[in-house]
């Protein structure tokens, strides 16, 4: 995916975002990864029906992420208190990062240029290795461009196979 000022293609390192989470606490993406694969989503915001649908999909698959040593992170321009309410409504247990001040949006080149009202993120998804190297990038401007849950499972499997030294169980 060509994405403005920073190149966000497979094999490149995703920037170590520093943003407040849905509780207002400052976070870094590398800290959130914590040594595990990450599925990172940029989202228009709570108001978009496509985002609501997609986030419900993620809330359904979080049960697998929670037992599989992998993370989900969502970035939007909603303020933390709005994200907290949206997150609670979804029943999500993953983290939201707020770029309400558009600190990273221009640098990432992911602004949705066709929405001049909200100036939101363009929906996109990145599956990341624990060191934030991009494994796969998805352009979700059209809903069908987003990763399906099967594609997320596939990406998480491929990343995990590459980073877990004991993926092949040692011989007894």
């Amino acid at each position, binding site marked *: 995916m060509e994405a403005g000022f920073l190149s966000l293609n497979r094999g490149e390192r995703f920037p170590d975002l520093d943003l407040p989470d849905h509780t*207002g606490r400052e976070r870094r993406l590398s800290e959130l990864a914590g040594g595990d694969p990450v599925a990172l989503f940029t989202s228009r915001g709570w108001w978009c029906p496509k985002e609501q649908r997609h986030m419900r999909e993620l809330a359904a698959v979080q*049960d697998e992420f*929670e037992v599989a040593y992998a993370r989900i992170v969502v970035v939007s321009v909603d303020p933390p208190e709005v994200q907290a309410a949206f997150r609670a409504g979804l029943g999500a247990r993953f983290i939201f990062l707020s770029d309400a001040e558009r600190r990273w949006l221009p640098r990432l080149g992911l602004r949705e240029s066709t929405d001049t009202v909200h100036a939101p993120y363009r929906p996109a998804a990145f599956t990341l290795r624990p060191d934030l190297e991009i494994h796969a990038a998805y352009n979700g401007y059209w809903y069908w461009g987003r990763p399906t849950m099967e594609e997320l499972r596939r990406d998480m499997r491929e990343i995990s196979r590459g*980073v*877990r030294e004991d993926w092949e169980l040692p011989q007894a």
Partner: protein
Amino acid sequence: MRPFAFLVFDGERLTDDTKAPGRRLRVDARCVAGEPVRGAFAHVCALPAKEAVVPYDMPEVQQVRRDALAWWIPLLGDSLVCLTTIAIDAVNYGGAITVARDPSLFESDPFARVFPGTIVETDLFSEVPPPPGPELERYSGAPWPGGSF
């Protein structure tokens, strides 16, 4: 860093003196590794009796960690100092400790559903970023949310 540190709980007090009388508990090492937050309050949802254990894989233990991620951490907000579950060994859960600057929300602590809570004033704990979720599986022997590859 080892993924856990030992604290001792006698039912009323917590100490890092591992020779003190009481039950030795494994906590996330990061919670006692930094600059201590003075005058904080720990909600120790554990019992001093060593028989008070349940497997980490019990649905009740999984669910309280889900609740911690979903609403307990957001509810505490800036008051939160750190939280850790208590590992007894690689398999068993002995409770949890939530540390906050203000104890007024401890009556809502979801971890008290498994073992009852005792409020302890403490200077032992340091601030640790709360777990981002949704992960709640542990690394072997490490108290959740500590430990990583």
